[in-house]
């Protein structure tokens, strides 16, 4: 096999695993959009916040220590203990659930019946608020997150591909794990929405708000539930990205990458989010691979958006989205 083809294949495979990461973030968007019609711009910042909280709990940081120090002139920073990863994860989940409740109680309860674009702008405000809160609570420096997933080059893949093609592909073990975890997450979400009472209620709300209300489903409970689920998805995404490149502000920018993923997959489709993520991941890696000699690097910054833009012109509702019908 020619070398270029092999390199392209390697790039495509790496794109697949990167796409899984995008899909993870996009999944959180889809969940909230389906259940409440809110396009949650804060999803990426939620991932950052969850990851920050996880690191903070793990290392026993005192929340708001900088603020407390600035006001009272004290010098506290750590409690002096560390938490096992699992306990810290459970603690973070609790924080995200509390956050979901607060968001429902103090923001979206007051914005019922507003136009979608107003809700969207409210989530931009929420994103800013949460970003500031995360920094004040846990400090803004780049943190290392270690959740016990092995990192570095994957040996088996290298050996296997070397045996097949005579050229070992470089793939990160962490990304393979991320793909696996994302798969488990999606399957459990599907099982949850198919086989539990709350899951059915969730689907009913997604189908028709008013009909769901009239058969006695509490919309408020569903909203809290769905924001909690999105928080948990954000935690998983934040954990994976954080373990890969450190917990820092740029984490929240991946949310922006999830937008073209949504456009490709459709705003209302969970499989769409996954497929869209994979297409974007592979597409941008291959595009960068082939176009680098011609236009220079860093095309990854915009390729996804331009692809989505081109796609929108032909299929505005996305690959799997519901057809948009408008009436006067």
């Amino acid at each position, binding site marked *: 096999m020619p070398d270029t083809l092999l390199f392209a294949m390697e790039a495509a495979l790496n794109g697949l695993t990167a796409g899984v990461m995008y899909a993870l973030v996009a999944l959180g968007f889809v969940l909230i959009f389906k259940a409440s019609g809110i396009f949650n711009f804060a999803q990426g910042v939620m991932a950052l916040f969850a990851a920050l909280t996880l690191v903070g709990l793990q290392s026993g940081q005192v929340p708001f220590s*900088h603020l407390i120090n*600035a006001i009272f002139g004290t010098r506290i920073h750590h409690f002096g203990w560390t938490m096992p990863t699992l306990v810290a994860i459970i603690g973070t989940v609790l924080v995200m659930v509390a956050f979901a409740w607060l968001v429902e109680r103090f923001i979206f309860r007051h914005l019922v019946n507003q136009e979608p*674009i*107003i809700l969207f*702008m409210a989530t931009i*405000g929420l994103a800013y608020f*949460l970003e500031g809160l995360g920094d004040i609570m846990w400090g803004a420096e780049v943190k290392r997150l270690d959740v016990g997933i092995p990192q570095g080059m994957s040996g088996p893949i290298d050996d296997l591909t070397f045996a097949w093609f005579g050229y070992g592909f470089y793939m990160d073990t962490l990304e393979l794990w991320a793909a696996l975890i994302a798969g488990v997450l999606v399957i459990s979400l599907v099982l949850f929405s198919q086989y539990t009472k709350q899951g059915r209620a969730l689907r009913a709300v997604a189908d028709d708000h008013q009909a769901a209300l009239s058969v006695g489903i509490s919309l408020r409970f569903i909203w809290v539930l769905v924001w909690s689920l999105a928080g948990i998805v954000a935690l998983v995404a934040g954990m994976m990205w954080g373990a890969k490149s450190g917990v820092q502000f740029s984490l929240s920018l991946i949310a922006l990458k999830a937008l073209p993923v949504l456009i490709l997959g459709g*705003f209302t489709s969970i499989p769409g989010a996954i497929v869209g993520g994979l297409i974007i991941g592979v597409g941008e890696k291959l595009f960068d691979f082939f176009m680098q000699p011609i236009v220079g690097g860093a095309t990854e910054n915009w390729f996804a958006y331009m692809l989505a833009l081109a796609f929108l012109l032909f299929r*505005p509702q996305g690959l799997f989205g519901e057809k948009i019908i*408008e009436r006067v």
Partner: protein
Amino acid sequence: MIYREAGDFKTSYGADNQTFPIKGDRFAYYLVLAFAFLVMPFIINDYWANAIVVPFLIYAIAALGLNILLGYCGQLSLGTGAFMACGAYACYKLMVAFPGLNIVFVIVLAGLVTAGVGVLFGLPSLRIKGFYLAVATLAAQFFLIWLFTRTPWFYNYSPTGMISAPTRTVLGYPVTGPQASAVSIYLLCLVFVVALAWLARNMTRGTLGRKWMAIRDMDIAAEIIGVNPLMAKLSAFAVSSFFVGIAGALFFAAYLGAAEAGEAFGIDKSFLVLFMVIVGGLGSVLGSFLGAAFLIVGPVLLKLLLVNQLGWSSDLAAHLEIMIIGAMIIIFLIMEPHGLAALWRTIKEKLRLWPFPH
């Protein structure tokens, strides 16, 4: 008892339709203009110009531009930063290519170039709307910034990748470059602000503005009653980008002096201008000014209070500032979705009746 319209008779349709129908308002407006042109130049100093007044004027232009697109025509754009960059780079290239051309014309031309680019990225709005359009404009944001930082032609192959404004004069006074004084920069920006605000006000209350508003309120219905959506949407993109482009050109040439696309015109600029429009009031010329003032002066005051008075570290103050801005956006959307301009309108209504309840 001062703010009254009694005795203020209108004898023609034009008089009834003027921007400030109440005598008191008109008087206040002329007073503000007189103060800005005749008093401010003598009392302004470098600190005031750099920290508050000039950024306020420039952002007011950008907010006006976005308000035309979002508030009047209902098309959400997250690419304001990139369009500002477009204006800045167009301004730079024109300044360098035509050294003899007056800077005022250069800035207007830069606005026109940006209008063209804006129309190009506005084309998808004919097919898509809402969030989808927001993502499409994000494409503009990332693509244009990438283009400006990666193509050496745009920054004339300068080794740092920065563009820096050469000195240009208006009536013999330098307004760009290192020799420009605070007063001349201020006056240049002020002239543009007044001219563009006048333009915006008169466009939005004419045929064009009514078409935009019809599209905003319900595009299908507007199309049925005979508004051409192609013309209305693209003209909104063109006019909006023209304003934003001029703001970008002024921001680069008069305010910063030297700029790098990714740093000066990143996506945070897009959000900042969007916040100004939300806080100030969608669909209001006055709102654009109020929003810009609020989001320029607010952080400065907060920083003065926290860093200079309480002695907090500046990054902590910065984080608190983002948090407060975010909370403010949410509070405004919940309590007063039409922004500061609506608040001002309510105050005026109350003032007209005061001290009587009805």
